[in-house]
């Protein structure tokens, strides 16, 4: 019977049946993916639907409102020395956040090389970029609030502008903040050598693994990717 079992794993029928055989094969559907990584991917898929629904709702209210929508290149402009720079702040924010994805990818690389110092440093740098992003977002919020934008009204047009803007960037900012906290926890574990010794976590009791860095990285890249869509739909539309 063992030979029969092996046979099912070795022989791959052609076409669609082969695809089904791969997916439904013995024990694991994704051979190289650990449980944690699989779970993070599926969570991100679910989270994609949340952001998707938010953004579709935004597009719907923007398309269906009867009042004019505020002009983004004026609303989001930054005034420096008497000159209005459209999209300046948001360009810096986006640059910082995209850069943080780069440092995160490097952290994952060094984590698999078991380089504790560089991994920790790069995770902390990523977290710093993330915190800077949230900080600039707070600045942008306070600027808009100062200019009279509220979730229920604004001086320039459709009330839904403030409602969707604060809700969606707020929801994204919360994601970044949670990511920063997660990164700080992971950085501490890396620095203390918890992952080298596979020390059990305080809450879940599961052994610490270097893969944790990559899982945190998946989340981080996702949050960055979502930002690209928010950026395009709020600031460029």
């Amino acid at each position, binding site marked *: 019977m063992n030979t029969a079992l092996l046979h099912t794993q070795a022989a791959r029928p052609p076409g669609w049946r082969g695809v089904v055989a791969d997916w439904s094969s013995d024990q694991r559907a994704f051979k190289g993916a650990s*449980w944690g990584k699989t779970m993070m991917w599926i969570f991100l898929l679910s989270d994609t639907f949340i952001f998707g629904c938010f953004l579709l709702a935004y597009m719907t*209210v923007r398309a269906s409102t009867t009042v004019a929508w505020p002009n983004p290149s004026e609303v989001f402009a930054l005034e420096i020395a008497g000159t209005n720079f459209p999209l300046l702040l948001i360009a810096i924010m986006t640059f910082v956040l995209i850069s943080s994805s780069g440092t995160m990818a490097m952290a994952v690389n060094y984590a698999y090389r078991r380089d504790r110092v560089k991994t920790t440093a790069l995770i902390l740098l990523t977290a710093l970029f993330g915190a800077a992003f949230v900080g600039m977002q707070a600045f942008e919020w306070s600027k808009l609030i100062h200019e009279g934008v509220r979730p229920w009204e604004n001086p320039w047009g459709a009330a839904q502008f403030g409602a969707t803007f604060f809700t969606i960037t707020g929801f994204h900012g919360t994601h970044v903040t949670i990511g920063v906290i997660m990164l700080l926890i992971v950085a501490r574990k890396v620095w203390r050598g918890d992952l080298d010794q596979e020390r059990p976590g305080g809450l879940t009791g599961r052994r610490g693994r270097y893969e944790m860095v990559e899982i945190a990285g998946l989340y981080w890249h996702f949050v960055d990717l979502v930002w690209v869509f928010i950026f395009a739909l709020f600031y460029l539309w």
Partner: protein
Amino acid sequence: MSELAHGTGGLIPAAEVPEMELPHPHGWWSTYVFSQDAKVIGIQYSLTAIAIGMVALVLSWLIRLQLGFPNTFTFIEPQAYYQFITMHGMIMVVYLLTALFLGGFGNYLIPLMLGARDMVFPFVNMLSFWVYLLAVLVLVASFFAPGGPTGAGWTLYPPQAILSGTPGREWGIVLMLLSLCLFIAGFTMGGLNYVVTVLQARTRGMTLMRMPLTVWGIFTATVMALLAFPALFVGAVMMLLDRLIGTSFFMPTLVEFGERLRYGGGSPILFQHLFWFFGHPEVYIVALPAFGIVSDLISTHARRNIFGYRMMVWAIVIIGALSFIVWAHHMYVSGMHPWFGFFFATTTLIIAIPTAIKVYNWLLTLWRGNIHLNTPMLFALGFIVTFVNGGLTGLFLGNVVVDVPLSDTMFVVAHFHMVMGVAPVMVIYGGIYHWYPKITGRMLDETMGKIHFWITFLGAYAIFFPMHYLGLLGVPRRYHEIGETAFVPASAGDLNAFISVVALVVGAAQMLFLFNLAWSLRHGRASGPNPWRATTLEWQTPETPPGHGNWGPELPVVHRWPYDYSVPGAKEDFVPQNQPDPSPSHAARGLAT
């Protein structure tokens, strides 16, 4: 990652997976209360769901008392009546059916049926239950809040859901939406566990195409829930903001008592789209586990292999996928573009094809089977009948021209109670009668079970069959009382009274079931490990009830599909999945992946 390098170089991979880390309980609290054992979590989920379900049952009694005997029970005021129907609907759909099928049956059965020791992340799994419990408590709290629970109808349509005049406008709607958000958060934690366990933590030999259909149903439903609940979450968050800080996502310009409200420019239809993008998959989130469980019940108790296993699996997957593109058939009268109606009517009717495949396959499984009419089987058969019945009226309502006059009548109420009220509840009962022996080591009492079944089954027909007729007469749903209308004859009142009396009796029969659950725990006949002589892995555990970790030192190794009943030439009329096979012809069938 040595555990991942399998299937290569001719090595037989180990059944045991080093990734599984079981947090063993220390003492009473971590064994029974803050347990990380999926079986305990499943029981906790089930008991909580049944408890809140009892609230919904009592609410349905109150609804029926008012409808059957208007002007008799004066304490049921119109406001209260709206609160009763709202809470009855929401509790039954979300907090009972979803939680019981996925949280209850899912937690208990997935690891056992797949030969896993537990869910992949037991701590997250435990958290899932506690967040669910919190959601239930917030929901219950709304009954005691000033103004009572929300009376917006279970669909919570804005703008009326958050306007004055709707009961529970102050606290009820806020607590309802908060509770839904919590439920979704809690469900996501559990749902991720179920999906990853099915995909990545099966024992050796358990390919996806050898999983029992129960697991297929729960798995597909969980994937759907992870993709559908986000829409409800987004809708709930936005409505909370509309209600609490005065945004206008869903609120158009409104005049109330001659005064213009602060709202303006929002889209009420947007909420309907978000709600039903969740709401329609939700029907199948409840139905697919029921399909799966009923397949296993029928196969086991008719001692026949399931007919067309692969087709059954594909039907489940296709129904799951299609259910995401039919949602607007709930919105034919909402004023959306008529072309959408054409599209959604077409997709809706297409779903009938895979569903009919399943029904035919159940019948062909029963065909010339050795049918044992015990309680689980009776409930399974009851499911097929009620589901087909409700499905047929679904064909009526899926067509725009037929739906428009029937919309918001009792016909709709009869339809969805038949198809996603009675039918899945039948399966829940069947499942509990079937797996109770594994959970407790004792059988539920058969006599009480049969009385329970016949009253429930016949009662359900006596309640919901006449309701179709009322709907065709034009009796509207959600009305506190009909009063005198030209088109509704006086005899409709008599029919309503009859329905109400039956509903009270059927409700009372459920108490017999609860009594049976408690009584059999001590006095039930000892069941032994495999009273139904079933093939699936959960019946092959070394201990009954299974201990923490489910299996002994060795994980079971699977050699065949789960439906080897009445195999010609076999010693017994069933061959368990973990039994090595002497007969090559049937091994070939199981391996045909």
